[in-house]
């Protein structure tokens, strides 16, 4: 029993952090047109093998576990990584064709995430997506988008574009089972945890240097105490995330329940910490050039994916846990 990145896990997390800070830093989002992954960025991720992390070796992947997947997406969250990063990783597990799989892993073709909204679908991420991925509890499918021109919509979230589709073509690849949705849920939860941590780091750093009324703001309880509450949220969400990742890796029967709890806590922590981070920064916190609003807007998107509040809590209510 050990619930923290350990040994090689920690090394992968460090490598992911180093790579992401260089290739996809959160600062990029202050430049117009930076939503989604560009083709160049996708190719770079592919080259480094990040899309193959949780793809079995037999399918041409790295064959690493849910734990490494989680550690990578937590670091991606700290940089407000776009959702197509996760879609691409999942798609590599869905494609049944070795050629397509290799192209996905290499980042040569783009995948967006499709979410149902009433009778329509919203496509999130990659404006040049050749494929759209749908993931439901028991099934994941890839749809060719080549012959479809989704309508562009304005997107609140600067990290991802949003498009609207009236209907989907026939899926080209399908897999059943909960594996993909669990990887998706874990990835989204991990990103949200990373974002909750990032919000805490930003305000703690600022509170140590910014002064008002002749004192560092971090010495006022009006700042200290909400920061402490933010730290508690991070600690709770992160601990449960580790638990869920390990439960999935080990194939425990209660992994689904732990994933639901992890996603719920991550949703709450990311949204509440993004809120507090803006508020405690004061005026500078509402400016476009500050990172604070990016975390809020991206958390709004991610908190609705792979389990929003209502569906998570409904499933979790009667779930049984193991020791």
């Amino acid at each position, binding site marked *: 029993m050990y619930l923290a990145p350990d040994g090689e896990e920690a090394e992968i997390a460090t490598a992911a952090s180093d790579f992401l800070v260089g290739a996809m830093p959160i600062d990029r989002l202050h430049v117009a047109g930076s939503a989604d992954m560009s083709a160049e960025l996708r190719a770079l991720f592919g080259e480094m093998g990040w899309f193959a992390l949780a793809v079995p070796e037999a399918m041409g992947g790295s064959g690493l576990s849910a734990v490494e997947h989680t550690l990578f997406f937590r670091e991606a969250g700290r940089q407000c990584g776009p959702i197509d990063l996760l879609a691409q990783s999942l798609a590599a597990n869905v494609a049944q064709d070795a050629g397509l799989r290799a192209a996905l892993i290499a980042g040569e073709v783009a995948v967006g995430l499709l979410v*149902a909204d009433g009778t329509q679908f919203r496509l999130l991420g990659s404006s040049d997506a050749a494929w759209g991925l749908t993931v439901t509890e028991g099934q994941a499918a890839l749809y060719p988008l080549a012959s479809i021109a989704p309508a562009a919509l304005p997107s609140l979230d600067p990290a991802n574009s949003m498009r609207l589709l009236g209907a989907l073509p026939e899926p080209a690849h399908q897999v059943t089972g909960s594996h993909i949705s669990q990887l998706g849920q874990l990835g989204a939860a991990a990103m949200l945890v990373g974002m909750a941590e990032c919000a805490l780091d930003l305000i703690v750093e600022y509170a140590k240097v910014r002064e*008002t*009324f002749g004192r560092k703001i971090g010495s*006022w309880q009006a700042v200290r105490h909400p920061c402490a509450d933010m730290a508690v949220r991070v600690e709770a969400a992160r601990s449960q995330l580790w638990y869920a990742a390990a439960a999935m890796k080990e194939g425990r029967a209660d992994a689904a329940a732990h994933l639901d709890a992890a996603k719920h806590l991550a949703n709450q922590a990311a949204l509440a910490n993004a809120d507090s981070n803006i508020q405690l920064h*004061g005026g500078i916190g509402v400016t*476009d050039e500050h990172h604070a609003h990016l975390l809020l807007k991206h958390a709004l998107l991610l908190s609705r994916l792979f389990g929003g509040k209502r*569906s998570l809590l409904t499933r979790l209510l009667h779930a049984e846990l193991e020791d």
Partner: protein
Amino acid sequence: MDLHFSEADHLFRARARAWLAANVPNEVRPAHGPESAQFDRDWQRKLFDHGWAGVAWPSEYGGLGLSGLQQVIWYEELARARAPHHINTMYIGLMHAGPTVIARGTEEQKAFHLPRILSGEAIWCQGFSEPNAGSDLASLKARGRIEGDHLVVNGSKMWTTDAQHADYQELLIRTGEDGLRHKGLTWVICDMKSPGIQIKPIRTMLGDEHVNMVFYDDVRIPLSNVVGELDQGWSTAMATLSFERGLGFIGDQLELYERVKRAIDLAGKTRLDDGRLALEDDGIAQRLSSIKADCMAIRAMTLADIAETDRTGMPGPKGSMMKLMVTTTHKALSEVAGEILGWSFLEFGGDRTAHPWTYDYLWSWVFSISGGTSEIQREITADRVLGLPKSR
């Protein structure tokens, strides 16, 4: 204790409602640019021409000299008629600068500026906050030195809304010694066309550029533009701020109730991802209803406060509690709206008209930070309402 409106109040409401129904512009206000300022000038001019300008101003200065209660009626009718939002480029002139000039200005200042504000001819902006003097206004550093009959101003101001449209600025600068905090500040009227002024817009998380940094490089302002006494600007500024905390938010307060009704309507016709109507979710319905009660309380607080002020002639110290209540309720309502609207809540490219709920959601933080953060409002409440020992 009574809820009676006088006959005159009833007549006033009927007259306001009828006029607004006939005169509220159909066009949507442009979101930014000179055309937004022109829209505001036109609407203000229309109000002025028809005798509706300056509801809070004394009649001797061209205002309507309305009682507080009739001002409440006016703002309720504005909200009901969905008239142009009263927080626009006219706001500082009508609600801050004008009242300050009325209270502390010279006859010349009054004669020149007040008619221009009322008629929509002059747009004003505020110049109080600085990069390192937000909540702690008394630490401001922008400096004015006296040269003959002029002040020469150097430094910078921050969070100046609509500086790019403004003709004049209410400017608070340090004229006395450094480090004396409240002492040695001066409140002066700055012509925004003066040489040496540079404006740099600050883009906010809402995607707009209404607020600005303003830089002053040897900007010369005649001493005759000082309002109140030289070095007594804190006293002049506080007159403005207490006005803001008293009646300044009245429009927002009353508009909230219109918005909660719209949210309930919305929840009655919008489906959640589980297929149910949003209003069929007990949690959403209860939160909306509870917010409705909060909005009713806000209206009651407003009426109680206004009626008391009408009687005593003195605004009480309750403005800070009002701002806390209003900003908290505003955010809670915006969050429920986000849950109701589902994915379409995340469609937002800065267009307030097309996506009002998302805009208002983002504005929650501007609202709870600007004009004194919620943390500062709690400090003021603890000090002035509860009389607790000072924290600083």
